């Protein structure tokens, strides 16, 4: 199997947060604990020349994951057949014994810890279990705008092109996250593209 990747159509995202809630519901993540899917709003300009876009970000499942390299406990691994990056909660020692090295190593802040002391890292695994059971990832299935897709990275490139950056997301070649975007960039001259 090939490296799996994630596609996000930023031009469609209205910031409805349905993917965030669907993910929290599926994985039973409490409120005020970071979920595996996060949506952020990027705003530019001053009234009335404004720009606002949303970025839905779970994990890029990098081809050279910085979180994996940074983990002193070897708790993070990359599946050789799918490229999916996962954490073993039994190996992660939690954020009282480790200064969240994985989170700090990730330029996109993907590895997340619950607010309570000793919390283990948690992150997106592309809903590997749902996919194994013949279903789509929960965010893909939930998005009312059909703006998210998950699949082998090569296929995503074929379907959507190879744009690797979006407003609010800077690509890092040395980590090579498996992401494809249809972006909506802020232009200095004002108006929406």
């Amino acid at each position: 199997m090939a490296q799996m990747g994630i596609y996000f159509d930023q031009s469609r995202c209205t910031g409805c947060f349905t993917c965030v809630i669907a993910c929290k519901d599926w994985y039973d993540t409490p409120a005020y604990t970071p979920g595996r899917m996060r949506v952020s709003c990027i705003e530019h300009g001053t009234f009335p020349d404004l720009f606002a876009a949303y970025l839905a970000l779970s994990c890029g499942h990098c081809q050279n994951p910085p979180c994996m390299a940074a983990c002193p406990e070897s708790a993070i691994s990359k599946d050789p057949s799918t490229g999916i990056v996962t954490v073993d909660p039994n190996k992660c020692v939690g954020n009282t014994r480790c200064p969240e090295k994985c989170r700090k190593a990730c330029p996109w802040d993907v590895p997340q810890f619950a607010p309570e002391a000793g919390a283990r890292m948690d992150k997106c695994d592309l809903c590997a279990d749902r996919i194994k059971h013949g279903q789509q990832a929960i965010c893909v299935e939930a998005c009312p705008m059909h703006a998210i897709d998950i699949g082998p990275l090569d296929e995503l490139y074929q379907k959507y092109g190879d744009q690797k950056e979006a407003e609010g997301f800077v690509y890092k070649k040395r980590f090579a996250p498996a992401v494809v975007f249809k972006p909506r960039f802020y232009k200095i001259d004002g108006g929406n593209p």
Partner: protein
Amino acid sequence: MESKSLYDESRGPVTIVNTGCCHDCGGRCVLRAHVQDGKVIRIESDTGPGPQIRACARGRAYRQRLYSNERLKYPLRRTAKRGEGSFETISWDAALDEVAENLNRVKKEYGNSSVLFLPGAGNQGMLHGPLGPGLMLQMFGGFTRYWGIPSYEGALFASMATYGTIKTGHSRDDLLNSRMILMWGWNPANTVWDPETALFLAKARENGARMVAVDPRFTDTAATFADEYIPIRPGTDAAMLIAMAYVIITENLQDQTFIDKHTIGFNDYKDYVLGRSGGVPKTPRWAEEITTVPAQTIADLARKYATNKPGALIAGWGPARTAMGEQYSRAANVLCAITGNIGINGGYAAGFMRAYSSRETRHLQPDKNKKAVDKSKGIPSANPVENNALPRADSLYKLSGGTNATSARIHQSRIWDAILTGTAGGHPADPKLAYIVASNCLNQYPNANRGAEALKSLEFIVVHDQFLTPTAKFADIVLPVNTFMERSDIAPPWLGSPYYIYLNKTVDSMYESKTDLEICRDLAPRLGIDPGFFEMSEDEILKMFAGRRPDIDDYEKMKRDGVVKIPLSEPIVAFKDQVKDPENNPFPTLSGKIEIACGHLAEMDNPGIPQVPAYLGHKEHYDSPLSKKYPFQLLTTHSKIRTHSTLEMVPWLREIEAHGLWINPKDAQKMGISHNDMVEVFNDRGCVRIAARVTERIMPGVVNLCQGGWYQPDENGVDTGGCANTLTDDTHSPGGAFAMNSALVDIRPAGKPGKEAV
């Protein structure tokens, strides 16, 4: 993948129950509840064949509402002063005895008109919610109720006056035929407006349609879809639309063939627009002064709209939710008409904007053999209190459909005044008892402080609800009602979509909660009413309801699938027949044509609802004397995390968006207010203390507090719950438009979060 499978069934098998989300938003969406051991453990939405009806964050988060610890568990009796929220748990028998005793007493002492029934939209199923209690109270001898719905009354009145109907919308697939889409005061990214709307806007944009948003806020809709964003001063939309008509008329860009063939009154409007019938010419420069929109922008937009046909002017309801809001909506309808964008694919008639009319059942459809009733002599009603009352002076009573014209009803914004002043105050009744079902009326009617005063003055209040809302806190008896997950129902879609959702009961009723129907079943005998209807099973009733719908052909299949999607052979286009073949298909107006000048309005001779749309001021307009004292215009828009005041108690949703007062940085800086600082927003009606949300996404001079935050007055009467209606005006325009977006306020800093006011 070493982790344990999510399909591990060691705690029992997981079954998927097809149900749907059913509160008062612009949705009604498919939910698939995963149930294990009698408990909902996860929720999915539509995974079936397209077009999918995908739920939004609100429906997806429902587990936290269903299992909220704040749910009402048992019947409650008040033990302290109204509004203090102190209650004792009592038995169902004791609670229902007390309700019946008070209903019987009030009926005997004052008559049925003193029973005030306040049904709400908290439940949107065909069966559950206010239907049962309304029927019960009708059989009890009747009740007084309200007319006017805050969401849309101005738009509805304008739709009836112009077109004689509320069916003025297109199905969303038709957006792909539009070359231009004007999204006027319309934010479906947050308000949904039928589940597929935002997706079709995205597709229309990808299809090359030019998209323009007109709004005082840079909404998610404007940000995501608009090629051009035009901010406009609240309450002045009619002026801009009229100035667009000026440009179109003076540059001869109108569709004169369409006007001649399908409309009446164009010349009257032309005279108003050009300033021939008194007043100034309504030039773009005139409108610039009023709206703040540059004259050039207005003229450009008018030209583009008139010459890039077909174009869809979608006139949202928010700008009609202002004082004199009927005029905005009328002006929008007329602009659609004079450009000939009506009855064609890719066009749009604005108006009320219902498209697929699944709410009109066969027995409600016009019957040609039925004799027309002369309503001027009295309007028949099944409610004995209303039967044969004369029509209201400013109602469109000669038309069929629209708002019930009876003068026996009280406009919803005047309910508090009616309770406090009664017949002496000019109202049709002297309310003594309020029967409140699925309604957080104290929170959602205008002027909450006056509402609290009114509720304190009543002799008895009973509330059916799921949570101890600000309204329920004022009840003498609170009856716990279950949620849609705990019963079966059918949800008709909102405005435009061809489908029904069948909500299969997912889990047993929580605690001692009951359906409204079960409550009536137990209460009816105590009121001496035959409980016949209430003793029917849910299934019998739903089957009966479905049987009246010509488009539900297989009830059992709908039940199994949880949804029936009705295929359309072509997009729904309002007035297609009227425009194609006007001889055989008149518009349902009195003249049979689109009424640019409305004869019914002309007869009323009320300067607040003139025969042609006009730009009108009012006592809380931006340029009124009161604006010197209260310089900010308040908007009370819809939040993306609530459905009105429903879903307030859901932590997952609260985490998404903090409630706060939107204020432009320019205004905030002048007062030394930083993001998240506490502020007090106030006027003569009340004061709200809330965190400031300093954002460029709102016009200077305008502030926004999303409606639906729960009213919570402190010991000084300052609302710390962020209820927008603490500040709104409880009067209405002649056509019924609510003034929810027309309140003037001032703002002062109130310290840092969590600290007392400075």
